[in-house]
């Protein structure tokens, strides 16, 4: 319990320490753009593959369960649409990204800490929390929601292709179902989740990486811990947001 309080306190201090006047705005911008590319472009293939197949699988499995002739076929695409928008794209993709981006951020900062690169920056007079952590969080909050929007589109597309290719329903029926009872609020809810999760995915691993103490073994431990804690927090936040906003 004390450790949890200690970690929470240090996390808050890290977040507070990020906000200071940049030594050179151009350098911070360069770092922000670099992180956008690392997080966004670097995660694009895995996000595309996962979301496409999740959509495809959800279409096939929904069709498998909806055997009653009383339920219209369009319901399949409605269910695919809503599950992808509400849960699969924001939550599942975020959990995958917690592994991909989280371990990368924790490993990178941990390595910098252990090899004294962070100390070297501090001695130069650079606020390392602002220069190393803030651009990562901002880049994640900027790029991850875009990835999740893309994941939503690809998920629905995957469902459409799987449904039509396996003969479950025609493309026209699928498209008709997509347009039926569509609630734009669901997209808003999905984006709220995306922003919340992207903050968790970046700030928690940054905390564990920044505070690594020891050697190479501790970097590995910090990465694992960062991913585990991020995943748990994503699931808790998922429940809290659902309870509050739905």
């Amino acid at each position, binding site marked *: 319990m004390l450790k949890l309080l200690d970690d929470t306190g240090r996390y808050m201090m890290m977040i507070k320490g990020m906000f200071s006047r940049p*030594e050179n705005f151009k*350098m911070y911008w360069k770092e922000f753009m670099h992180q956008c590319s690392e997080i966004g472009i670097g995660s694009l293939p895995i996000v595309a593959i996962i979301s496409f197949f999740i959509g495809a699988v959800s279409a096939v499995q929904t069709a498998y369960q909806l055997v009653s002739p009383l339920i219209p076929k369009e319901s399949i695409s409605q269910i695919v649409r809503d599950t992808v928008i509400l849960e699969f794209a924001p939550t599942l993709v975020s959990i995958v990204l917690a592994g991909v981006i989280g371990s990368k951020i924790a490993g990178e900062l941990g390595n910098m800490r252990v090899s*004294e*690169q962070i100390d070297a920056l*501090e*001695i130069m*007079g*650079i606020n390392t929390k602002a220069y190393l952590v803030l651009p990562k969080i901002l880049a994640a909050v900027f790029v991850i929601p875009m990835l999740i929007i893309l994941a939503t589109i690809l998920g629905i597309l995957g469902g459409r292709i799987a449904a039509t290719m396996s003969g479950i329903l025609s493309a026209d029926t699928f498209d008709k179902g997509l347009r039926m009872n569509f609630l734009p609020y669901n997209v808003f809810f999905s984006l709220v989740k995306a922003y919340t999760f992207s903050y968790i995915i970046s700030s928690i691993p940054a905390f564990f990486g920044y505070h690594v103490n020891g050697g190479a073994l501790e970097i590995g431990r910090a990465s694992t811990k960062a991913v585990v804690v991020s995943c748990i927090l994503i699931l808790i936040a998922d429940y809290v947001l659902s309870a509050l906003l739905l």
Partner: protein
Amino acid sequence: MIEVKNLKKSFGGKTIIHDASLILKAGHCNLIIGSSGSGKTVLMKCLVGLFQPDSGSILYGGKDYTQMNTEQRKEIRKEIGMLFQGSALFTSMTVEENVIFPLDMFTRDTRKEKMKRVDEVLDRVNLKGANKKFPAEISGGMMKRVGIARSIVLNPKYLFVDEPNSGLDPQTSGLIDKLIKEITDEYQITTVINTHDMNSVMEIGDHIVYMYQGNKEWEGNNKEIIFSKNQRLNDFIFASEFLRDAKDMRQLEETGKISNDRNMAELTHEDAPELVPPSDNDSPE
């Protein structure tokens, strides 16, 4: 000049620096020596601001660093360069990018001016032509030299060097020591070196501070250290093979005999010209 007054630092109830007071002379190579665990690394980290001391003061040109706010500290830190034990180069950047980094961050010079300065300092540390190499592609000695180049690129007033010889062969160590000494003299920097390498002590020790269990035990220079009567210092320095002959010489001068298991037959005329007559082999050609 850096003045340390009654510095105290502890971690989790264990006091590492007890009550250290010392002066680090401007324009000289100041060496902090001591065995492992003597508190020299903690002292250096307090000096550069990586650790906040529990009490005491650190004066940079008369201004107390421990009492400064973040912005004031940033200004002092711009005058500080540091070479870390493991060089601490940014592994994702090339040699050139590592050296230009402080210029990019803190100056508004043009690209051409920055590149000119980078070439200047890389040339100064004998690393011309290594600009595009990554740290993983160069040797330990070259990494130290890149670290030195990065430390001096902003013309610092103070240069801190942590264990400059660790992981280096004696020849490369000698070259790094020589380079640090030359840079100190050339740019009139106050250099503070943390080491337990006695070769460095004898080569570049303009001013030496010996730390023992978190306290300053002895202060002097590389000429005085051999003849110090401080028992703890003697135990530390004469644990080194390098200085055993010197110790023997001193004992021979003082008592006419050597107290350890060595005998005079091992000493050559080259070691102790006053005590051992030249042999036929030593005679000049």
